[in-house]
């Protein structure tokens, strides 16, 4: 019973009644709670194995998260990577392979934010990894880029261009190697391949069946999209052109480097004789043909990239470029037509364009220009030009030239709502829009493109292209002459156009007209330095390179006028701008060497101001230019007296180096009739009288005015005359003395080679007697020069005059006493020493005169030791010994006087020295004579 009851307790029936709320069952789940998910953005566990982000994620976690299905995680990982890598740059080097391969895969991610983060990461990595480290991974990166560019989704396509921007900025060389694939991708971005045969009959076969596409789904207009793509294409082609290996690319193309110096594949070796003689670095020219071995070898064991996408099928021949151009050019033309047509609705004439259309057109022209430069070699470039001409000249003429000088449309007034919106978009897309292209830039580029199509005059008929070359010429002339200042970039492009037209047209009228315009620009004042240099280079290159082979340029009157004006400009420039002066000098030298009459005439006129010893260019400019100026001297038709006077002062002024002064003297020597080098035909520039007086005034180193002013000056540096120093000696500074000494050396050499020695000496003697003998104050360098020169020139058979000898003896004695009195440098002492002894040993009478002029009785006591010193010096010199012996009587007399004078006192050291020398020399000689007499 109980059991039964209990059983009922357990399973009581719940009574449900209608209208009452149903009671909750006991086992009902309470769903009344709120759950929260646990996110773990940071690792709880600290990992000491490597650096981590602020979320404690290390690089492995981040890289693995890049594969996460959730786009937020992926984006977070990308941001984290960037943070980690910027904090620890060393990690980049270690993990660059995985970062690039994982990161590049996200270029094609569906989510725009992820793609943007990936591009940012790429930009960061590109900043810190050099190109050669990325090279092995680049095929992978570029494959991802390609897949992004060809993606079906338009958003991914747009972002692919951003990736391209980054790569172009940092790795242009690597990207340029892969142009074979990328160029096609560019085409696909703005057009689509037409299905076979659907193109219709109007299409030419050359168009290759591509047509522009219009997609309406994009956020920007089709025109803007095309502009973005074309901008990138232009930059890409630029990279391809610039990164071409140098060996092939001797192109006379364009750009500012066109005016630069020539580049050879062999670096020449420059050696100067002084260095070589010391044995520093031998000459090795046969091992490697030049100073340095050519390191830029193109030979590689393994090609950089797999076959199929490599350089091999790249744009290295004219045919491939033609193939590519054949596809691209019709598309570009279509874009042009569209851009032009879009404007027609707004403005009645097609000349005024909106900024947007102008940017588009500018891009099109830039690309056309680059296409031409793609061909690696010059002959191929010509071939390509001809190809363009045959296929597209009519199209270009029709589209480009119809409204030729283009201008901007003023849109400031009516800015509609849509316009404003569009403007904002442009601002957002930043540099994509290409900014504002000036109409001038557009027009100039158009000129450049069109002018390349013109033919060389050899194979073109008169007036064939006049219909479209005429407006271009007019535009160029107008732009150059209207007085406006042009930036150096535009001017460079314009000059290129002028160059091309001058060279191809080969007509005098055209040349004169265009050069006149350039010359007008050249004559403007206050041009900036780069512009000035550019113009100068243009003219000088035109003269140096082209005028030899092209008579119409050689006969140009403008060029002649420009050349004739150069010396004046040099004078006006002075020392203000050494670079410009150097450029001018280079041209002047070439023209002078080639005997250009106008230039030589003008040079002759301005020679005196160029070679002015005070403010002429020759003393103001740096050493290189000075040397050029001295070399130009050789080509002057005549060297008149006043110019020679200037030159002589230059030699001695000390503002040009002694070496250059020697060169100058030698140059004048070569132009004199006495050098004997030139064989006949050239008439002599210098009269021999003038030449000799030039040499003499260079020898003395002081002008007659300078010498006469010295006579009256009472300077501290003067040593008063005394019996031991009959001339008052003006001590020149050491620097001036040594400079003059070097110059004298060269003058002596010139005088020696003149021919008849005795006549030459006669002239010199007369000059010395006339100009120097009466002087009371003489600079020491003049004394030294005279003493140096006389013995070198003296012919043994010639007997010098008395007055000369008297003067020489005075010089000699004065210099000897000066030598002993002053503390001089070793160089000066040696020089003076050498000069005195050389003159005394070659002219025996000179020594006797010197000895005779020594009167002991007139000397005061302080001078006695000095005299003794001089005498003992003379006695010690072995070469003079014989002559001293010959004058033994005079010598003995002097010494007796000397001993008597100081006989009262104790014998001094100097006296005993002198007596010893005397005994050794004279007595020793007598003894040997005596011995000889005995036998």
């Amino acid at each position, binding site marked *: 019973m109980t059991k039964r009851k209990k059983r009922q307790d357990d399973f009581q029936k719940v009574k449900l009644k209608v209208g009452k709320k149903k009671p909750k069952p006991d086992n009902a789940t309470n769903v009344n709670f709120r759950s929260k998910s646990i996110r773990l953005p940071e690792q709880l566990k600290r990992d000491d194995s490597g650096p981590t982000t602020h979320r404690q994620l290390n690089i492995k976690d981040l890289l693995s998260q890049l594969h996460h299905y959730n786009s937020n995680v992926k984006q977070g990982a990308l941001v984290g990577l960037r943070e980690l890598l910027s904090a620890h740059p060393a990690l980049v080097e270690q993990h660059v392979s995985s970062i690039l391969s994982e990161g590049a895969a996200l270029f094609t991610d569906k989510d725009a934010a992820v793609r943007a983060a990936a591009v940012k990461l790429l930009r960061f990595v590109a900043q810190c990894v050099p190109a050669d480290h990325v090279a092995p991974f680049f095929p992978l990166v570029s494959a991802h880029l390609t897949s992004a560019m060809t993606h079906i989704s338009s958003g991914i396509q747009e972002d692919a261009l951003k990736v391209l921007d980054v790569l172009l900025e940092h790795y242009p060389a690597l990207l340029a190697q892969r142009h074979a694939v990328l160029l096609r991708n560019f085409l696909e971005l703005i057009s689509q391949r037409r299905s076979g045969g659907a193109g219709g009959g109007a299409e030419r076969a050359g168009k290759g069946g591509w047509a522009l596409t219009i997609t309406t789904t994009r956020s920007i207009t089709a025109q803007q999209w095309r502009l973005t793509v074309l901008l990138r294409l232009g930059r890409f082609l630029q990279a391809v052109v610039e990164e071409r290996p140098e060996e092939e690319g001797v192109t006379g193309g364009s750009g500012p480097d066109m005016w630069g110096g020539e580049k*050879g*594949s*062999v670096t*020449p*070796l*420059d*050696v*100067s*004789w*002084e260095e*070589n*003689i*010391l*044995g520093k*670095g*031998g*000459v*090795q*020219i*046969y091992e490697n*043909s*030049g100073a340095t071995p050519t390191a830029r070898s193109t030979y590689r064991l393994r090609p950089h990239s797999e076959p199929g996408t490599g350089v091999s099928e790249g744009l290295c021949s004219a045919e491939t470029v033609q193939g590519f151009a054949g596809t691209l050019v019709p598309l570009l033309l279509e874009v042009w037509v569209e851009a032009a047509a879009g404007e027609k609705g707004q403005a009645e004439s097609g000349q005024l364009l909106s900024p947007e259309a102008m940017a588009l057109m500018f891009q099109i022209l830039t690309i056309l220009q680059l296409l031409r430069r793609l061909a690696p070699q010059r002959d191929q470039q010509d071939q390509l030009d001809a190809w363009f001409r045959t296929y597209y000249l009519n199209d270009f003429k029709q589209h480009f030239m119809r409204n030729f000088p283009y201008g901007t449309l003023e849109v400031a007034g009516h800015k509609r709502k849509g316009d404003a919106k569009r403007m904002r978009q442009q601002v957002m897309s930043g540099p994509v829009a290409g900014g504002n292209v000036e109409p001038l830039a557009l027009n100039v580029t158009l000129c450049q493109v069109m002018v390349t199509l013109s033919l060389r005059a050899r194979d073109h008929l008169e007036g064939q292209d006049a219909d479209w070359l005429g407006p271009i010429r007019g535009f160029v002339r107008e732009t150059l002459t209207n007085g406006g200042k042009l930036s150096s970039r535009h001017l460079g492009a314009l000059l290129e156009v002028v160059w091309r037209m001058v060279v191809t047209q080969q007509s005098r009228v055209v040349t004169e007209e265009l050069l006149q315009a350039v010359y007008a620009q050249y004559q403007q004042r206050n041009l900036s330095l780069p512009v000035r240099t550019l113009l100068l280079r243009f003219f000088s290159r035109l003269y140096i390179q082209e005028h*030899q*082979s092209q008579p119409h340029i050689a006969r140009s009157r403008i060029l002649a006028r420009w050349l004739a004006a150069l010396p004046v400009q040099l004078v006006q420039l002075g020392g203000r701008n050494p670079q410009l002066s150097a450029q001018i000098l280079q041209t002047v*030298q*070439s023209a002078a*060497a*080639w*005997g250009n009459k106008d230039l030589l005439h003008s040079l002759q006129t301005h020679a005196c101001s160029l070679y002015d010893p005070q403010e002429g260019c020759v003393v103001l400019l740096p050493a290189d230019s000075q040397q*050029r100026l001295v*070399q130009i001297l*050789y080509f002057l038709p005549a060297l008149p007296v006043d110019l020679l006077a200037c030159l002589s002062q230059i030699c001695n002024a000390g503002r040009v180096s002694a*070496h250059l002064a*020697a*060169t100058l003297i*030698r*140059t004048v020597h*070569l132009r004199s009739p006495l050098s*004997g*080098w030139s*064989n*006949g*035909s*050239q008439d002599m520039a210098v009269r021999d009288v003038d030449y000799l007086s030039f040499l003499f005034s260079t020898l003395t180193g002081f002008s007659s005015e300078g010498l006469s002013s010295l006579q009256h000056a009472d300077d501290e540096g003067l040593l008063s005359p005394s019996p031991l120093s009959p001339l008052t000696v003006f001590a020149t500074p050491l620097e001036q003395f040594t400079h003059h000494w070097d110059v004298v050396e060269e003058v002596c*050499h010139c005088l*020696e*080679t003149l021919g008849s020695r005795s006549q030459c000496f006669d002239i010199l003697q007369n000059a010395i007697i006339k100009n120097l003998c009466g002087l009371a104050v003489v600079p020491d360098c003049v004394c030294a020069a005279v003493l140096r020169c006389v013995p070198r020139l003296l012919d043994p058979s010639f007997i010098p005059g008395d007055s000369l000898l008297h003067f020489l003896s005075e010089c000699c004695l004065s210099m000897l006493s000066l030598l002993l009195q002053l503390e001089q440098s070793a160089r000066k002492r040696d020089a003076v020493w050498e000069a005195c002894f050389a003159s005394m040993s070659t002219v025996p009478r000179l020594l006797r005169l010197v000895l005779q002029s020594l009167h002991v009785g007139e000397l005061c006591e302080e001078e006695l030791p000095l005299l003794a010193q001089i005498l003992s010096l003379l006695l010690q010199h072995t070469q003079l010994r014989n002559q001293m012996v010959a004058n033994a009587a005079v010598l003995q007399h002097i010494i007796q006087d000397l001993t008597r004078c100081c006989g009262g006192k104790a014998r001094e050291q100097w006296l005993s020295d002198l007596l010893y020398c005397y005994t050794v020399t004279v007595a020793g000689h007598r003894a040997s004579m005596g011995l000889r007499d005995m036998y």
Partner: protein
Amino acid sequence: MSSPMEVIVSADSAGQLWNCAVFDLHTGTNLLSYRGGNTSSRSLTILNGEYILGAQLGKNFINVWEIQRKDQLQQKLVCPGVVTCLTASPDGLYVLAGIGEAIYLWEVPTGNLLSILSRHFQDVSCIRFTDDSSHFVSGGKDNLALIWNLASVVQLDSSRVSEPRHVLSRHSLPITDIHCGLMGPQARVATASLDQTVKVWEISSGEMLLSVLFDVGIMSVTLDPCEYWLFCGGSDGKIFQVSLCNTNQCRDKTFQSDSEGNQVLKGHMNMVTCLSVSMDGMLLLSGSHDETARLWDVQSKQCVRCISHKGPVTNAAIVPAPANMFLPDSRPSIPLPRFSRHLNPSEQGEGAGPGGVYLRLGPNTQVPEETYLEKADKLHSLMCAVTDKSVFGDGENTKVRVSELEEEVKTLKKINKDLYEFSTQLLTKPT
């Protein structure tokens, strides 16, 4: 007495005793002298070993002697102007003369004037042929040196202006002398200039290889046949010797005390106008305005002989002695025609004369010579053969050698083993 291999040919501007004279290279004796007139500088040349040509100083004609008839002037070739320099091609087919600013090219067998090249802006000072007559180099007072290809210059179409192959424009003052090395179009050219430099160029590319700066203007230059040395004659009478190869020998020399003066040959008192090196590179001849020609020993740099002249020496060269020179009975194989003074003689004279070029091969060019490439191949195979033999040897030698080496290896192994055992004993020996 056997006739000498090489002789000195020299001329001075006075021309009192002779116009030009031939000296024995080793004894210095005067062998022959040719009389009549005097010769201007860089204009004495031997044509085909049969004639001597020398341009008269200051006049507009060229003196011609048959090489064996020393006394008699054979003829005078009248030119359109004063000849400043003259040279004949080594194969004897062409004569080049610098007349004023233009270069005249004559064909010797016919005497036709083939071309007038006027690319220089001032007087031409020197012309030189390469040794295979394929190119020539001209230098002028306009600072330019031009390299011409003879084949492109000789053309019938007179409407086209012929262009030089390369323009060498790095000198800044007139060019005074040119020397052309051996090896035909692959040769190197040395140019001397008043701008105190000597520059060495490649004919093939026109690139400059070397520039040496001196402290005086350089009036003459030459290279020895091996191109080990560059000799430069200065305007102050010094001759500078520049080593073109940096061997250990040169490096040792710098440590000697006399290295300062070692590389300058001093002796002349005035500018050195001509230089020439003998075939074996042992002797250097220099002529100067101090009226002497000197012979130097290159090794010791000593002046061996001094040949005095009566005036400034204008030409001095060491040349291989032509066969006809010492045979008084020999005759030139072809008579020298009169050189025409105008470009197309057919237009004035015969009127309808054929406009063809007369072709006559020189005596030594009738058998086609090996090209330089073939020669190099031959030389290479020869050298390879030597090394092959010495290294690998023949079959039998190899076997013997191999067995010898094997034995040696065995002994070495044995020694090694002994050494090992000895040392293990030493180490494991209980102490």
